[in-house]
């Protein structure tokens, strides 16, 4: 039955990056079935991410529609979310959607100006890309440009 709930949640999407389900995003931390319903723990991606309230609401709606009488969605902060929890399928979906998925930075993230990650263009796969801004259209993204096909694109930041 727990597996069914995970499958149901594949239909709940991130409102800001609708190709990703909440399962792909790695924000579902636990699912516990109770006598009269289900209790979930979810974790925010970023502290100020405005999508989290909507996500919690959509999860509740989805499970209530599936017949669960009582649905509790609790927010937990620890352990803190990391992009390591994005599913492989989620990364593939991001790429197809035109957003470069997170890649591991080359040097230690402890360094003040550690080496930048080598981000590939999601359109032409060139690695000849430039970061335009550390921040982008949502908290989880940065802005890049491809120097070969000249397309600007979003990069889903690696958060550890």
């Amino acid at each position: 039955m727990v597996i069914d709930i995970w499958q149901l949640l594949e239909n709940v999407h991130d409102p800001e990056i609708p190709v990703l389900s909440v399962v792909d995003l790695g924000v579902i931390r636990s699912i516990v079935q109770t006598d009269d319903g289900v209790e979930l723990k979810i974790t925010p991606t970023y502290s100020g991410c405005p999508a989290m309230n909507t996500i919690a609401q959509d999860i509740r709606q989805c499970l209530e529609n599936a017949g669960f009488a009582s649905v509790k969605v609790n927010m937990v902060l620890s352990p803190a979310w990391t992009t390591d929890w994005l599913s492989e399928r989620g990364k593939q979906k991001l790429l197809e959607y035109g957003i470069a998925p997170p890649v591991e930075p080359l040097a230690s993230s402890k360094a003040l100006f550690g080496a930048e990650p080598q981000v590939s263009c999601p359109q032409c796969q060139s690695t000849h890309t430039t970061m335009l801004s550390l921040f982008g259209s949502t908290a989880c993204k940065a802005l890049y440009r491809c120097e070969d096909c000249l397309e600007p694109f979003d990069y889903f930041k690696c958060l550890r």
Partner: protein
Amino acid sequence: MFDTKTYSSEVNQALCDYLLRLADSSLILGHRLSEWCGHGPILEQDIAMSNLALDLIGQARNWYQLAAQQAGVGQTEDDLAYLRDAPQYRNVLLVEQPNGDFGQTVMRQFLFDAYHYYLLQKLGQSADENIAAIAQKSLKEVTYHLKWSSEWVIRLGDGTEESQRRIQTALNNLWEFTGELSKPDQTDEILHAVGLVPDLRKIQADWQNRVLSVLTEATLQIPARTWMQKGGKEGIHTEHLGYILAEMQFLQRAYPDCEW
């Protein structure tokens, strides 16, 4: 949201005060940054400052929720943000200083980020697991903030004559607000003694090294004078805070409990 621990009344009172310091500093700096929205020097940096603001306001909400729960007198995060007046605010003076030009905003951000970074790193090891959880979460974001502000300090400092002059002026104006960041008072002492918060004097050394290394690379000079302002953590603020609160709290004050 939080399972709070019970402490002696002395510790709990100090803890609530301390949580407000963390929350208020993040909220006020977030509010200042949000004033840039639509006015940034270039679109990418306008977006960057809005993102910084979003992170900080999100972190402030977590600290306020914990403070409200820990105080246990039925207040909410909104009561704490919208219904306290300036003398009850506990933010450091640095974060309420006006945006000025982009150089001043960048310098204010850098001086605070460097402090925030080391403080959160240590708070991540707090004996209180709620404090540790919020700090560990926030630290990931603030690490990125520090990268952004350090890069801009270097770019502007080691940039053109004009950018150098402006950011050096910003440093001269803001330096006197950095003293209280790592100056411990009774609240810090009470909480440090029970392992909830770090010794601020240790943070001072890390902060100074980091600040010095970035400012040196940016070819900037730390002002020679050493007199420092203080008072923010006790509720004695510069005149700027009142204006911020007037704008931020207007709706709640004019239409109590309004919702939309």
